[in-house]
């Protein structure tokens, strides 16, 4: 994960350096603020990845070792549902709410009902997975 945190740190540094240069040459508000917050956003991302990296105490993941074999990645990779009705319901609900911003109450009403149903459905689906998949030998590959 070394390269991952280095790339994000580099992006943060670049944006903050650009912010400093831009602010002290132009004193223009909008762009300076945007560059500054862009830089801080990447510091957050960097900090998160660094935390994950430190948590591994120097043991690299299989995908970070140049000599890793496929068997080193054995075990459950992650949870991948194959089909689900909820993304499309959530999407339609979201779009209806957004169009409600133009056309008003009726779109809002339909959109909110769809959104509510979809959010509940999404979560119930995720719960059902933890019940059915809790094998005792399960060990996660990605954190």
């Amino acid at each position: 994960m070394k390269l991952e945190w280095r790339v994000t740190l580099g992006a943060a540094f670049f944006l903050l350096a650009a912010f400093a240069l831009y602010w002290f040459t132009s004193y223009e508000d909008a762009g300076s603020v945007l560059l500054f917050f862009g830089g801080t956003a990447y510091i957050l991302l960097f900090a998160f990845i660094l935390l994950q990296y430190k948590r591994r105490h120097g043991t690299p993941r299989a995908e970070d070792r140049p000599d890793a074999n496929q068997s080193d990645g054995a075990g459950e990779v992650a949870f991948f549902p194959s089909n689900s009705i909820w993304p499309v319901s959530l999407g339609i609900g979201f779009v209806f709410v957004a169009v409600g911003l133009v056309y008003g109450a009726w779109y809002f009403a339909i959109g909110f009902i769809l959104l509510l149903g979809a959010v509940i459905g999404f979560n119930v689906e995720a719960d059902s997975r933890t019940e059915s998949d809790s094998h005792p030998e399960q060990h996660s590959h990605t954190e």
Partner: protein
Amino acid sequence: MTIIEERPERQEHPVERRLAEIVPGPEPHGFVKYATSTDHKQIGVNYMVTSFLFFLFAGALAMVIRTQLIVPNNHVVSLDVYNQIFTIHGTVMIFVFLGPFAFGLANYIVPLQIGAPDMAFPRFNAFSYWLYLGGGLTLVSGFLTSSGAANFGWFGYAPLTEAVHSPGAGADLWIIGVGLTGFSGIFTAINVVTTIFMLRAPGMVMFRMPIFCWNQMVTMFLVLLAFPVLTSALALIYLDRHFHTHFFDPGDGGQPILWQHLFWFFGHPEVYILVLPYFGVVTEVFATMSRKPVFGYKGMVGATLSIGGLSMGVWAHHMYTTGAVLLPFFAALSLLIAVPTGIKFFNWIGTMWRGTLVLNTAMLFCIGFLFTFLLGGLTGVMLAEPPLDFQLHDTYFIVAHLHYVMFGGSAFAVFAGIFYWFPKFTGRMLHEGWGKVFFVLMFVGFNLTFFPQHDLGLRGMQRRIGIYPAHQGWDFLNMLSSIGSYIMGLSIITLLWNFWRTLRKGERAGDNPWDGGTLEWACASPPSHHNFESLPPIRSERPVWDANHPEDLTKVGH
């Protein structure tokens, strides 16, 4: 070496990475599959097909624009409708075609190239597709309202977008539609970055990822910086229109120039968001069709990263003529971008150098891309210089420049990518003969359309005008340009025919028809549900080539 042609051979190796599934039942088909699938390949195809349909729509709008401009004092459409047409043409091409097509490629190809079974958040991924589709439809539905679609140009300058100047639902639908595609882009970016960071196959260290994946990663970094700015600017203009705030309304102390800053802080990275994934596409095609690894791999990665970085600091070069921006800062950074882009050109030519070139349609489009994108890049360097920009701002020279970059660059690479990965998507080869007809018509039509527009701009024709007087020296060039656009339209028809005939009776492609080196060629065409039955050992940036050409491993300098 687990990658061998015959399937039975493969079955001997057990699936090494076990996967949990929620619904182990039978796969749905047809519309249900389209609507409910969370498979990254299905979603990628959804993105690409949808955005291609939007491309056809916006291309038809472009035909109307060129028909209006074919002779002086022409009245095919009214001026108000003309404004709506060029606005929606630009908006759809930028927000609903080029970007989402790249997202579709990212969805389909990135997990395959890094050896992942799917994207990191499959349901979230499907959700962002539906937001994108809803946004695109909302955007174009403005044409169905009584007052027509938005008519203020694709960058929606304030105060023209204020309620006083643009009343009617069309403008609101534009704001909502663009906002929805923006959300969709942010979600896709989160998904792709997480996938690349967390789901690579063992041995696939960052510096073995194909350049396409690197470029997608940097693109998604830019999306994360740029799109939130756009969506918040759209929220502000919405508040201005409906809740009587005055962010951009000069009459009440608002600042129209603030909109320009916010929009271009999004808009310039957006240009690179639209072009970096396609740099990745042509890099893959050059390497595969030259039978060589990418020349200067780390230089390519460095160039991509520095283009991504620099593109964050050049937004105001769209705003030179406002007189309110710091010219030296933006001119210097804009000119600097030419350096990493030059490195990329050098490395593409280096990849072809002494290679065994295969001049099929995908490769022809990439070579065409080298010429047309270079021209667009050179006029970009010219326009980065304030004295020239003051002369040429808002003329057809800009129109020519941006189409050479966006069409001659990105769209040519779209076609290269279609021809290159179509066998992987469908298991069938697009017809090469028709492909070459398509390329020739497209290349000729494209240059005939947009090259004269440079000269039109130098002769003072402003962009966005719907009617122009005769005897300005513009008549012949406009005629040429319109004829060129019809040739482009014709070429698209040959492409559609090629799709049609290929899907019906196209020649079967094997798993690896181009003898490609990256991991997507290690799975079946089209890939099965969780992509890989087994993976070859990953020891370089083209593991499949190593598996298929063991003799190369002993060569010096590999």
